């Protein structure tokens, strides 16, 4: 593995499974020191043992917990170069007719306010870097930001909202003269453990898998490693002129209709 991230410190929210865990592995392999958050302590311990990353039990929507988390990171690492605002949920989501106010508020708390808090605190830490304000912030949105789902209103709304948050952050940082870039990735369906569970629990797992595969013109789901590769690129100095951008990684799903 090329070591493009040697000497950099990364924070990944929601790092215990799925895209987050894949990114903990990839950024570690590229030489970064990685800290990640989440709530699944057992999975986290195994990932720490495997990668040398550190785990900090914290939920992104816990506003009061952020200062203590950042203090711990400052004490342990002394700097922050990469933030991957990855944590997100869809629990309780439904159509606009059916969604409960509680589920809606909860999804907004994690997917939208949680990302804002991640950026806010990450930015403050990056500004405190010894050589001045430097770093790369990457927001995990979704291809569904531009392809709203009727039965996931909270998810669709929040994933579009964080694109405006990302752009506002990018323009703000640039205007302030910070060398801090901010971009978003918009993945299609990724074959995470979560999706594998959905497939395996379906009455006909083979049919369920075929259905997921058929959603992209490429006729397959993305692998976690493929998403982590894009995050690594945006995190690296190779992406030094990239800020305020949306990066689809969806096997051509949003490029248009599949045709006949």
């Amino acid at each position: 593995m090329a070591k493009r991230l040697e000497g950099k410190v990364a924070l990944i929210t929601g790092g215990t499974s799925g895209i987050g865990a894949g990114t903990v592995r990839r950024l570690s392999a590229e030489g970064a020191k990685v800290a990640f958050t989440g709530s699944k302590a057992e999975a986290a311990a195994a990932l720490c043992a495997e990668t040398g990353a550190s785990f900090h039990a914290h939920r992104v929507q816990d506003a009061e917990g952020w200062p203590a988390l950042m203090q711990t990171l400052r004490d342990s690492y002394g700097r922050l170069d990469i933030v991957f605002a990855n944590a997100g949920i869809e629990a309780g989501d439904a159509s606009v007719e059916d969604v409960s106010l509680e589920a809606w508020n909860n999804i907004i708390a994690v997917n939208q306010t949680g990302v804002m808090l991640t950026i806010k605190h990450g930015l403050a830490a990056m500004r405190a870097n010894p050589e001045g304000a430097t770093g790369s912030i990457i927001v995990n949105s979704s291809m569904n930001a531009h392809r709203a789902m009727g039965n996931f209103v909270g998810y669709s709304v929040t994933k579009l909202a964080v694109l405006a948050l990302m752009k506002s952050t990018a323009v703000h940082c640039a205007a302030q003269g910070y060398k801090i870039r901010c971009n978003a990735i918009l993945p299609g369906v990724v074959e995470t453990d979560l999706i594998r569970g959905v497939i395996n629990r379906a009455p006909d797992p083979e049919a369920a898998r075929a259905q997921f595969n058929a959603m992209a013109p490429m006729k397959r789901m993305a692998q976690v490693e493929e998403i982590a590769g894009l995050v690594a690129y945006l995190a690296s100095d190779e992406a030094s002129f990239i800020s305020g951008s949306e990066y689809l990684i969806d096997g051509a799903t949003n490029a248009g209709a599949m045709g006949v």
Partner: protein
Amino acid sequence: MMQRLEGRVALVSGGLRGIGLAIAERYVAEGAKVVLLDLDAEDSAAPREVLDKLGSAASYFRANVAEEADWQRVSDAVKDRHGKLHILVNNAGTDLTGPVESLSMESWRRIMSINVDGVFLGTKHFVPMMAACGGDFKGGASIINISSIMGLVGYSEVSAYNASKGAVRLFTKGIAIEFATKKMPIRANSIHPGFVMTPLMQAGFQRWVDKGFASDPQALVDTMAATTPVGRLGDPSEIAGAAFFLASEDSSYVTGAEIVVDGGWTAQ
């Protein structure tokens, strides 16, 4: 540096200068064999200088991307020399500015023939070869079309260039879906550079100075930098970084996408 394009063959049109040259340099540094196309005669100074710098991994053919016969000749030559093509960078392009009512039909046809026909013809003539060898590497073969931020948004007195780069953006999405649904091992994406310091940009600046829009080219550079959120122009190597990502197996699920590298310009 680890060589992540070892064993691959790439073609870069407009490869002697600016963004095309930066991409060719990066691909050679990553271990690829690179075929360059441009308009300079094959025994002239510019290709000699570039080939001296890039070494035996690079070769050069004179070709006008707007001429189908040139593409036929180049694809035959690439087949003879390498037998394969894994990475096609349709980079050659030209610009045209001015009030829309002042543009001649001839100048409109010229920019379309280079910026749009050139991308179509390059794709058409290399797809069979790329489909045949796309399975050599994870992520398959990769077509990388250089569009522009001017292919995403309009700009005063840039209408013809806007139209040509917008065409590249959607042509790319069309072929991306076509290849994906047919399970052909070729991905296709567009790169949208913002203001990047290249010879084409410098020539454009000089034209604006000659027209009296600015006192000197540096004033225009300063203006462009000021309207770009990160406060500077891009360097060709920063576009090459994106072209390398799209060529490498790291981008194996990226197809039909727009890769914007603009220092925040379109985020505003």
